C-alpha cells in the first residue's frame, strides 16, 4: 500500500480541480461528496500505511522519487545539467501526520456539510478545502525541500482564499491579506535557507541532505543560518512570536476552516518542518536554542493574551498559538517525540474545540461570549464534547493533552529549570482561560436571552464529527503513550533526538519524578479551573468585571497583544511611506535626471551648436558678402561687373589662356 502513497495528495487535488471547474455551483450541490470521497480514500491509504508499518509489512522510512525537471547548474565550478528529483519520503512522523491531516480534514468536511449548508458558494468552499488538504498532504509526504516549500506556499494561498471566503465583508479580506503577508515575511527566511542549502549542499533531497549534514560536510555557520531560516519560516506558518499576529485575525474565516487550517494542520506545518529537518537543528546548538526560546516566549505571550478576549474563536486562536509554542519549545530542547506527540493530540482536541465553537456560533449567530451563557441546557451534546476538549487542553488526566503536555514539561525540565518554570506558568494559564471560555459560553445565566432561547443543537452532520473527535481526545493520549507506542513508531528521528536529550541531560540537570509532575500539574490546573468557575461560572460575573477594572492597564496591554500588531502596522506604514518616497523620486528625480536631463543636455548642446553656427559659421559667410559690398566698395564692382557679357567672356578666355601658358 505504501507505494501508492503519492496518491494521497493527488486525489484531493484532482477532486478540487474537478469541483472547481466542472461542478455546478449551488446550495444543494452534490460536489462536496467528491471531496469527502477523495479524502476518505487518502485516509484509508494512510491508515493502511500505519498498520503495515506497525505490523512490519512495510519498512519505514520509505522513499521513492522521480525526475521533475532539470536545469543547468554549476556546483564545484563546472556547469552541468542538474536533475531536480521530487518524490515521497515517509517516515514515522510523516505517516502519523498523514493520518492526522486526512482524519481531521475528513471530519471537517463532513462537519461543513452542515455548517456551510446554504452558502451561495458552497461548491467553491469544498474546492478550496480539497485544495488545501492536497497541498498540506504534499508538504507532509515530499522528500524534496523545494516541493515542501512549494506546498508550503500553496497551503498559504488556500489559507488566504479560505480566510477571505466571505469576501463581501470588510474584515475577512483584510485578515486574509494580513495572514498571507505575515507568513510570507517568515518565508523569506525559509527562502534564504533554501538558497544556502543549495549553495552548500547542492541537493534538496532530505535523505541526502541528512547524510551530508551527518558527515559534517556543511560549515557550522551555514548550518546555523539554514536552521534559523527554517525557524523563521516555521515561525510564520506556525504563528510563533513575533509573527503570530495573523492567527487571531484569521478567525474571520468560516469556523470549520479555523479548525482544520488554523488549529490542526496548517499551523502545525511549521512544527512539522522543524521536525522534518531536525538533523539541521541537531547539528547547530544555537539554532536549537533559538527554537526553544521562540517556542517558550510564544507559549507564554499567547497564553497571557488568551486571558482577555470575548470572542470565543480568538480565545481558541491564542490558545493554539500558545500550544504551538509548547511544541516548538519541546523540539527546541530535544523532545522530538514529545513535540510530535503534542502535535497529534492537539490536532484532535483543538479541532474538536473549534468545531464545538462553530456549533455554538451556528446556533447563536455571534462569536461574542458576552452574548452567550447558559447554553449547556440548549446544546448538551456540544457542551459535553467541548468540556472534553477543554479538559484535554487544560491537561486534566486522562484526557489526551495531559499526556503530551507532561512529556513536554519533563523534557524542558531536563533542559533548563527556568524554561520549565515559565512553561508551567503558561500551562496554568491554559487551564484558566480554557475554562473561562467554557464557563462563559455554557454556564451561568443567558446574557442575551433572545439569541440563547433560539439556539438549538446542531444536526448530525456536525455532531458526529464532534463525537468522533471527542472520543479521540479522550483516548488518543493514553493509547499512544501506552508502551511508548508513539515514540517507537515515530522512529529514527526520535532516536537521535533522544541521544541529544541524553547529552544535554547529562550535562547537569537532574531528572524529575513523572508522578510528582503529573499530580502537581493536575492539582494546579484544578485550582485554576475552580478560580475560573468562581469568576465566570456563576450567574454573577461582576467580580470578573471588578478584576478587570483594577488591572485595566494590564488588560489593555493584553488586548493590544503586547503591541506586536502596532509594531507591524508601523512597519507596514514605514514601507508605504518608503514606497511613496520611491514613487516621488522616480517621477521627480530619476525621470528628471535621466530622461528629461538627457533631453536638456541635448537641448543645451543644440543651443551651443546653434550659437556657434550663428556667431561663427554664418558670420563668416556674411563677412564675405560684407567685404565685397562695403570694403571693396562700389568702385570695384562698377569696374569689374559692368554687365557686358563679352567682357566676361574675355576674362574667361584670358584666364584659360593663362592656365594653358603657365602650365
Amino acid at each position, binding site marked *: 500500500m505504501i507505494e501508492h502513497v503519492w496518491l494521497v495528495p493527488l486525489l484531493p487535488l484532482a477532486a478540487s480541480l474537478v469541483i472547481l471547474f466542472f461542478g455546478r455551483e449551488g446550495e444543494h450541490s452534490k460536489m462536496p461528496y467528491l471531496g469527502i470521497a477523495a479524502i476518505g480514500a487518502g485516509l484509508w491509504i494512510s491508515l493502511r500505511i500505519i498498520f503495515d508499518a506497525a505490523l512490519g509489512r512495510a519498512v519505514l522510512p520509505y522513499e521513492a522519487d522521480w525526475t521533475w525537471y532539470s*536545469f543547468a547548474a554549476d556546483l564545484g565550478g563546472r556547469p552541468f*545539467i542538474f536533475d531536480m528529483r521530487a518524490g515521497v519520503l515517509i517516515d514515522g512522523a510523516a505517516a502519523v501526520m498523514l493520518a492526522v491531516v486526512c482524519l481531521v480534514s475528513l471530519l471537517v468536511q463532513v462537519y461543513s456539510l452542515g455548517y456551510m449548508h446554504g452558502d451561495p458558494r458552497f461548491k467553491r468552499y469544498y474546492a478550496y478545502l480539497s485544495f488545501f488538504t492536497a497541498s498540506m498532504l504534499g508538504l507532509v509526504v515530499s522528500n524534496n525541500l523545494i516541493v515542501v516549500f512549494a506546498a508550503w506556499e500553496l497551503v498559504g*494561498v488556500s489559507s488566504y482564499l479560505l480566510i477571505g471566503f466571505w469576501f463581501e465583508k470588510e474584515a475577512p479580506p483584510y485578515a486574509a491579506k494580513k495572514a498571507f503577508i505575515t507568513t510570507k515575511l517568515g518565508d*523569506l527566511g525559509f527562502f534564504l535557507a533554501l*538558497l544556502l542549502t*543549495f549553495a552548500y549542499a547542492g541537493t534538496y533531497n532530505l535523505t541526502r541532505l541528512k547524510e551530508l549534514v551527518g558527515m559534517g560536510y556543511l560549515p557550522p555557520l551555514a548550518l546555523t543560518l539554514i536552521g534559523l531560516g527554517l525557524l523563521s519560516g516555521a515561525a510564520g506558518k506556525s504563528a510563533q512570536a513575533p509573527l503570530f499576529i495573523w492567527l487571531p485575525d484569521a478567525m474571520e474565516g468560516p469556523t470549520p476552516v479555523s479548525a482544520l487550517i488554523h488549529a490542526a494542520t496548517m499551523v502545525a506545518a511549521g512544527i512539522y518542518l522543524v521536525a522534518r529537518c531536525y538533523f539541521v537543528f541537531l547539528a547547530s546548538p544555537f539554532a536549537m536554542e533559538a527554537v526553544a526560546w521562540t517556542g517558550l516566549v510564544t507559549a507564554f505571550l499567547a497564553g497571557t493574551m488568551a486571558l482577555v478576549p470575548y470572542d470565543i474563536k480568538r480565545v481558541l486562536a491564542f490558545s493554539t498559538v500558545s500550544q504551538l509554542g509548547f511544541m516548538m519549545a519541546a523540539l527546541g530542547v530535544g523532545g522530538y517525540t514529545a513535540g510530535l506527540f503534542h502535535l497529534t493530540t492537539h490536532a484532535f482536541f483543538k479541532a474538536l474545540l473549534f468545531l464545538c465553537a462553530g456549533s455554538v456560533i451556528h446556533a447563536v449567530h455571534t462569536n461574542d461570549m458576552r452574548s452567550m451563557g447558559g447554553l449547556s441546557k440548549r446544546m448538551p451534546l456540544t457542551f459535553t464534547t467541548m468540556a472534553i476538549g477543554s479538559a484535554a487542553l487544560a491537561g486534566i488526566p486522562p484526557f489526551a493533552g495531559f499526556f503530551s503536555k507532561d512529556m513536554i514539561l519533563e523534557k524542558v525540565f531536563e533542559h533548563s529549570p527556568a524554561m520549565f518554570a515559565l512553561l508551567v506558568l503558561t500551562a496554568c494559564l491554559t487551564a484558566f482561560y480554557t475554562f473561562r471560555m467554557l464557563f462563559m459560553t455554557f454556564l451561568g445565566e443567558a446574557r442575551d436571552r433572545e439569541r440563547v432561547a433560539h439556539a438549538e443543537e446542531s444536526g448530525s452532520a456536525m455532531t458526529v464529527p464532534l463525537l468522533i473527535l471527542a472520543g479521540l481526545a479522550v483516548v488518543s493520549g493514553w493509547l499512544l503513550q501506552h508502551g511508548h507506542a508513539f515514540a517507537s513508531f515515530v522512529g529514527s528521528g526520535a532516536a537521535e533526538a533522544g541521544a541529544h536529550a541524553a547529552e544535554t541531560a547529562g550535562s547537569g540537570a537532574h531528572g524529575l519524578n513523572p508522578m510528582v509532575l503529573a499530580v502537581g500539574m493536575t492539582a494546579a490546573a484544578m485550582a485554576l479551573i475552580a478560580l475560573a468557575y468562581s469568576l465566570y461560572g456563576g450567574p454573577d460575573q461582576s467580580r470578573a468585571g471588578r478584576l478587570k477594572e483594577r488591572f485595566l492597564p494590564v488588560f489593555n496591554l493584553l488586548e493590544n497583544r503586547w503591541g506586536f500588531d502596532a509594531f507591524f502596522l508601523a512597519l507596514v506604514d514605514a514601507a508605504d511611506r518608503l514606497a511613496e518616497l520611491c*514613487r516621488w523620486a522616480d517621477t521627480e528625480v530619476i525621470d528628471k535626471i535621466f530622461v528629461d536631463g538627457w533631453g536638456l543636455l541635448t537641448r543645451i548642446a543644440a543651443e551651443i551648436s546653434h550659437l556657434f553656427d550663428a556667431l561663427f559659421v554664418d558670420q563668416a559667410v556674411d563677412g564675405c558678402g560684407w567685404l565685397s559690398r562695403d570694403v571693396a566698395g562700389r568702385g570695384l564692382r562698377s569696374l569689374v561687373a559692368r554687365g557686358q557679357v563679352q567682357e566676361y567672356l574675355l576674362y574667361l578666355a584670358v584666364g584659360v589662356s593663362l592656365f594653358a601658358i603657365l602650365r
Partner: protein
Amino acid sequence: MELPILSLITFIPLVGALVVLCLPKDNRRAIEAVALAAAAVPFLLTAWLYFAFDRTTAAMQFVERHAWISTTAVSIDYYLGVDGLSAPLVILTTLMSLIALIASLGIKERFKEYCFWFLILEVGMLGVFESLDFFLFYVFWEITLVPMYFLIGIWGGPQKEYAAIKFFLYTLAGSVFMLLGILAMYFKAEPHTFDMLALMKIHGGLSFRFQVLAFLAFYFGFAIKVPAFPFHTWLPLAHVEAPTPVSVILAAVLLKMGVYGIMRVNYPMLPLGFEWFLPFLVLIAVVNIVYGAHCAMAQNDMKKMVAYSSINHMGYCLLAIAGVSATGFSGAAFQMVNHGIITGALFLLVGVIYDRAHTRDIGAFGGLAAKVPVYAGLMSLSCFASLGLPGMAGFVSEFLCFLGAFPRWKIHTAVSVLGIIITAAFFLRMLEKVFLGPLNKKWEGLPDMNLRELITIAPLALLMIALGIWPRWCLDMMNATMVDLAGLFR
C-alpha cells in the same frame, strides 16, 4: 533543399503587412483575416520548431547564411540561427504577437494602419532574436522602434505623443551607443566581420580598456531596453499610454531584447568588461528589484503598477546574470519567458477592466469578485503567478535566478529577497481593493469577460500553470546552451 524555417517565420508577417496595405480600408473582415493569418502561420511554424529543436546541443540550429552586402570592403551576411537562448524567445514572440493581435480586434480607428505597423513590429522583434550578424541585428533592432512609435503615438492614451517621443528618443539614444559598440567590434576583429559567433571568439585579443568601453556602449543600449535603473523611467509612461495589446508586446517581448542582448553580446564577447562591471550590475539589479517593487506599491493606476512590477521582474534577470553561473543564466532565460507570459496576461486583464470601466484607478473599485467571478479568478491567478507563487511559472524562474546569484552575491541576494514580499504586498493590496470587500454600487452592471478576451487570456493562464508544474517543457530547450554559456570562460 531544406526549408528556410527562420526566414519564413520572420518574413511571413512582412508579407502580411504588405498585403494588408493593399486591401481597401473599409474591408475590415479581410484585413482581420490577413493579419491574423500572418501572425498565426509563424506561430504554427514556431510550434513545429519547438518540436524539431535539438535539445542536446548548444550549437546554433536552423542556420541560414547567405552573402547579403558583399564587396571587397565589407561583407555582411544574411545570417540567421537560434539556440537554447533565442529559440524560446522566438516562440514567445510569435505567441504573444498572435495573442496581442487577437486582443487588438477591438481597435476601432485606423485599423488597417494598425495591423500594418503591428506586423512590421513582429518582423523586427523576430529578427532581433534570430540574427547572428551584427549588421542585421542592428537593422532589426531599429525596425522595432518605428512601429512602436506609431503604435503608441496614434492609438495611445491622453499623453500619447509625449510618451511616444520619449520612448523613441530614449531608446534611439541607447541604440546609437550600441551602434558605436558594433562598429568598434567590427574594426577590432581581424579580418573585419559582423559575424556575431566569430566575434565571440576574439575576446582574447581585446585589451581591458577596449572591453570596458565597448561593454559600456553595448550595456547602455541594452540597459535602456531592459529597463535597468536608472534608465527605466520611459517604461511606466509608455505602458500607461500605449493601447493594451501594445503594452502586452512591449512588456512581453521588447524588454526581453535588452536582457537577450546582455546575454548574447556583453557576456560572451567582452568578458573582461563584464567582469569589471559586475559589482555595478548586481547593485543595479538589487535597486531594480527593491526599488521597482516599492514604486509599484505606491501606484494607484493598475497599469502603472504592473509596469513597475515589470521593472522589478527584470531585476531578477539582471541579478541572475550577475551571478555568472549556469543556474543564473537558466533562471534569467526562463524568467524572460515567464515574465512575458505573466505580465502579458496582466496587461490584458487590466485592459479588460479599462475597456468596461474607463478607469484603472485601484481605489475606484471594490467587491468585484462577486460580480465578475471569471475575471477575478484569472486576475488572481495572474497576480499570484507574478508574485512568484510555487506551482506557477514565475516561481521556478525566480528561484533559479536567486539560486544562480546567491553563491557569488550573498548579501545582495538576501536584500533582493525583500522584493518578493513587497511584490506580494502590492498585488494582494490590489486584489483586496478591487475584488474583495463590499461591492461598490457603481459597478453593479459590470459584465464579465467575453469570448475574445477569454481566448486571449486563457492560454496564457494555462501556460503559467503548465510551466510551473512541468518546467521541463521550457528548461530542457535551454539547458545545453546555458551549460555552454556558463562554461565559456572556465
